[in-house]
């Protein structure tokens, strides 16, 4: 071996341990949590070197993908039911499930001057966007709010459905829909400032949004995946959660 080659070899050797340690985590994440998970993932990477790859979508859609063998290792759902049924069907590692956040629902508008329950009752709008309730837990919670407020059929006729809470947010952000039920976390998204007015829906109007995380079968032997789930319960991650408006959980830490 010539000298430069030796040097290169030595250099590569020093790189090896780092490469072996830096793991990767493939995480399916509920759309409402996508931006927060991105920040937590970045912090996690800074501290551990592990890289987290996020695939956002509605919990129902991600659930269907996982049932059909999608190669995710971690699932951060927007509800408890789907995480539970994955655990029951042994698609998730039993005992790994926990509530990582409790979500809050808001009614938001970039077009109206004021938003509250009366706007809904009086039907003073053209379109109200909600996430598809069949696959998005925030959508299901939104319909529950409408039930509790006992809104008229005229209001229900003005509902339009976003594919997940992300698209629902965008329908109101673009002004295409006057109003939308979105997650508080979306209004507190990375950009910080979001235009418009919102009404924080009283938690008495909908069942708690217990967002559960679970380690999937594919991630069972991935130390980085386990580390990421553990990290979600740590103070650094919980601080980020609080900043995004999620309520603390008894389950974590």
């Amino acid at each position, binding site marked *: 071996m010539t000298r430069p080659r030796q040097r290169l070899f030595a250099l590569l050797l020093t790189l090896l341990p780092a490469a072996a340690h830096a793991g990767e985590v493939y995480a399916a994440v509920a759309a409402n949590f996508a931006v927060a998970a991105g920040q937590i993932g970045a912090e996690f990477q800074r501290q551990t070197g592990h890289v987290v790859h996020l695939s956002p979508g*509605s919990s*129902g*859609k991600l659930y*269907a993908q996982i*049932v059909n063998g999608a190669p995710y290792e971690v699932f951060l759902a927007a509800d408890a039911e789907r995480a539970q049924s994955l655990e029951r069907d042994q698609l998730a590692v039993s005992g790994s499930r926990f509530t990582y956040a409790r979500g809050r629902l808001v009614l938001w508008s970039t*077009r109206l001057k004021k938003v509250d329950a009366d706007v809904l009752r009086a039907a003073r709008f*053209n*379109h109200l*966007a909600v996430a*598809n309730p*069949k*696959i998005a837990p925030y959508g299901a919670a939104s319909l529950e709010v409408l039930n509790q407020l006992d809104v008229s059929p005229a209001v229900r006729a003005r*509902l*339009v*459905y*976003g*594919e997940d809470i992300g*698209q629902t947010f965008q*329908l109101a952000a*673009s*002004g*295409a*829909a*006057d109003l939308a039920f979105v997650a508080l976390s979306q209004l507190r998204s990375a950009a910080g400032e979001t235009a418009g007015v919102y009404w924080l829906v009283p938690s008495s109007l909908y069942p708690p949004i217990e967002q559960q995380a679970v380690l999937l079968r594919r991630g069972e032997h991935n130390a980085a995946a386990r580390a990421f789930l553990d990290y979600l319960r740590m103070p650094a991650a919980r601080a980020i959660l609080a900043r995004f408006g999620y309520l603390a959980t008894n389950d974590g830490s």
Partner: protein
Amino acid sequence: MEWPALWLTLRLAGITAILLLLLGTPIAWWLARTRFRFKSVVEAMVALPLVLPPTVLGFYLLLLLAPDGAIGRLWQYLGGGPLVFSFSGLVIGSLVYSLPFAVQPLQAAFATLSHGCMEAAATLRAAPLDRFLSIAVPLARPGFLTAAVLGFAHTLGEFGVVLMIGGNIPGRTRVISIAVYDQVETLQYRQAHLLSAAVLMLSFVLLFAVYTLNRRHRHGA
């Protein structure tokens, strides 16, 4: 079975196909005969929906059709309701989305018309519209048929644009492709199978009819 979605989709495709013929014929006629220097610009614009991702089209349409958007505002000024999340909005989206599928076969058909026939008719003092209706249209019949069926069939297969501007409202904007997507996402595979098989058969029959009729026409001519 999602009958409302199926009916809605057929209605959307039918209306779009008819409007496409009305809109596409003058564009195709002009493109086939013009010596305009920047003809290629127009041709490229017509062909754009072939290559643009439906999300790009859907994104622009959403902004244009929104209450504050250019088209949405104009529509409401003219007395229409909100365009986005409405059937009319879907028709506009489908027109844009399927335009090349109507214009291109028509343009090809018009381009092959012999100038001799048209000029002979002109010397016999047939008015331009008369020449067009009694000579060009019958001769270009296969082009019209292809344009109508492709416009219809392509609208039948529309997904991304509708997903972005439709709002998934049952009976109003929830077309077959969205219904199938929903069923698959909620793991209702039996319903998804039924609907998908229906669409598959319908699409095949449509295309089969076009190819058969066009072949017969060619052999008969």
